[in-house]
């Protein structure tokens, strides 16, 4: 009996100590893509300190490289582990949500939905439910080397397909070893190709599920871009093997290629690689219509998280109004509606303005659960085949059949 009393007193004392800490103080594990936490003084650390001070929760942050994030999330979460809150590329939301790995936050997000830009917000929706909130948004634009353009005798950056092709050919000089355009191979090249498919007026997979990659317009778009390599030799041979952005950027940094199609993430790499590089960023040239591909990262909550309320508080904090300021420190674009006003755009650094100017022409990649497979297997193969001179119409017909098979149509 004496023992019992002794233990229960101890238990009561322990409970009292625990109770003295702030109510509902939880520890939230957060995985972010590596660039956001690249150094100990990265802005996100200060932001998390502010969050911890305000809410009493603690946040454990882990940086994961972009190329490994999807696989690591998959492996960790399907084993019932993984982070509470994760940053994920907007293209992965559908796949993870379909597998039941992401928490449905529709009820919590609906009241604050009008804080966000509609395009990026919709990228977190799958089958009419909200699974992720936009952390930052981006799209791809055209980078042009001013010196090479001028030396080729062209006075303005291309605005149409014809001007684009003419500029690429004019900057190509086999003897000097210069090319018009650097481009990626396989998956990376496919990502750069999507805007041109939309610009031709074609759809990749329409909202109603119709597969449009075998339409004459889509075939023409792939023909147009791949022709710059196969017909005009206006791309360096690195296009055959470049499967990372570093390799795509290299010829542009070395001034061996005059143009580059990339998002705002290239700015840092270019400035680091060659501080003397004189380049401008302009909206992508337009085909039948203007189009670019929307990218960016969302924050989502693990369906199995034991601290889902604290997790939501963190998501709301990082994607909320404060994100305008936070993302500006990274030279990235917040997905808050307040970040897209004329006034806010004017305040942006000059090199980011072209991206915001074409934001309204942004297309999200098809929100289907099997998108990662379609992107790597089907479009990676389409682009590699096109570069190796295979007949584009056959390649695209085969791709359409494969996509329909994958989608179970």
């Amino acid at each position, binding site marked *: 009996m004496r023992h019992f009393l002794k233990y229960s007193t101890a238990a009561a004392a322990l409970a009292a100590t625990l109770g003295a800490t702030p109510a509902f103080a939880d520890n939230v594990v957060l995985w972010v893509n590596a660039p956001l936490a690249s150094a100990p003084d990265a802005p996100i650390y200060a932001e998390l300190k502010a969050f911890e001070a305000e809410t009493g929760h603690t946040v454990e942050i882990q940086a994961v490289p972009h190329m490994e994030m999807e696989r690591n999330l998959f492996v960790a979460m399907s084993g019932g582990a993984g982070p509470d809150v994760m940053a994920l590329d907007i293209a992965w939301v559908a796949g993870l949500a379909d597998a039941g790995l992401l928490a449905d936050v529709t009820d919590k997000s609906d009241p604050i939905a009008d804080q966000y830009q509609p395009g990026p917000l919709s990228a977190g929706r799958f089958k009419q439910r909200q699974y992720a909130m936009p952390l930052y948004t981006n799209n791809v634009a055209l980078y042009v080397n001013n010196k090479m353009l001028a030396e080729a005798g062209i006075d303005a950056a291309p605005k149409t397909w014809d001007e684009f092709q003419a500029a690429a050919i004019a900057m190509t000089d086999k003897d000097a070893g210069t090319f018009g355009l650097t481009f990626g191979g396989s998956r990376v090249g496919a990502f750069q190709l999507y805007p041109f498919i939309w610009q031709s007026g074609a759809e990749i997979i329409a909202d109603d599920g119709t597969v449009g990659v075998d339409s004459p317009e889509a075939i023409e778009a792939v023909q147009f871009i791949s022709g710059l390599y196969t017909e005009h030799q206006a791309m360096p*041979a690195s296009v055959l093997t470049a499967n990372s952005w570093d390799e795509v950027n290299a010829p542009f940094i070395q001034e061996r290629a005059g143009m580059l199609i990339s998002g705002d993430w290239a700015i840092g790499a270019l400035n680091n690689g060659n501080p003397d590089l004189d380049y401008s960023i302009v909206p992508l040239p337009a085909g039948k219509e203007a189009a670019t591909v929307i990218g960016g990262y969302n924050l989502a909550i693990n369906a199995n998280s034991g601290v889902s309320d604290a997790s939501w508080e963190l998501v709301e904090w990082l994607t909320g109004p404060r994100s305008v300021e936070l993302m500006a420190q990274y030279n990235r674009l917040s997905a808050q509606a307040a970040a897209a006003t004329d006034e806010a755009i004017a305040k942006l650094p000059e090199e980011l303005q072209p991206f915001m100017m074409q934001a309204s022409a942004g297309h999200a990649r098809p929100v289907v659960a099997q998108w990662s497979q379609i992107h790597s297997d089907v479009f990676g193969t389409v682009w590699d085949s096109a570069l190796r001179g295979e007949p584009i119409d056959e390649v695209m017909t085969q791709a359409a059949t494969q996509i329909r098979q994958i989608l179970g149509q």
Partner: protein
Amino acid sequence: MNARAPRNQQLRRTWSSVFETGTGARIYPYLMVLPAIIIVVGVVVYPLVSGVMSAFYDVTLRTLNSGDMAFVGLRNFERVFADPSFGIASFNTLVWVVLNVVVQLSLGLGLALLLHRAIPGIGFFRSGILVPWVVPSVVAVLTWRWMYDPSVGIVNELLVRWGIIDDYHPWLGDTATSLYAVTVESIWKGTPFVMLLLLAALQLVPRSILEAASMDGASGWRKLWHVILPQIRVSFAIAAVLTFILTVNNFNAIWLMTEGGPLNSSEILFTLAYKYGFQRYDLGMASAVATMLFVGLVIATTLYLKLIQAKEGE
């Protein structure tokens, strides 16, 4: 002596005395190895069995989370066989393994024989030749990627200067050359290890046998074939089996150089299994390929070791 014996018998019995006689003594050794067995079962046997089982279940991102994985019999294997990439990958695996094993063993043996001599400064060459083996594989692969670069790579530069090719060639980007380009890197990386194993074996060949052979007038080749090789046969077999296994499983070289591309031209079964698993998230198909690889490896290794043993008996 007599005075001490009774005192020994009076030693206090402790709890561990139960292991000194009878059943206790019989289970004692098993208890000692139990922790090791538990660990081996946990990290080797369980994953292996679970991997093989997955090959017969519908394991995808979706079913893994919900937990209702259905038994599908051989359907995963059917789907793998129906995929045209599987045929390409199987053929590539064969080419990849044969080239790697044959070239690494012959080069390794050649180098070991060269470096076996006792000449001044041989230590420098012996350690120098180990450099490829010591370099971390990721560093080696990325370096080779740059060396093969179609615009600035040193491989192209040298070949053009020596007049072997007229123009820069995208070695890793051409479907006809990508597999062979990666093979060259893999041979460069793997040969020093083979050499090291064989060199160690050569050091153990008794000098007297070689001297006897020389006195009997055996030529260099005959000495190699009839004296040296039989002496280092066991090490040679071990080197062959290890090279075989390491080559089949050499995922790093291919994945970091080409990701199995372009257009599956350098795809081996291992990279294909990885793609099924972590690009399609279809672990059922990935396990089917991995199971076939595993069975193939076990059969080939057993056959080879049996052959060597049979020769030993002769």
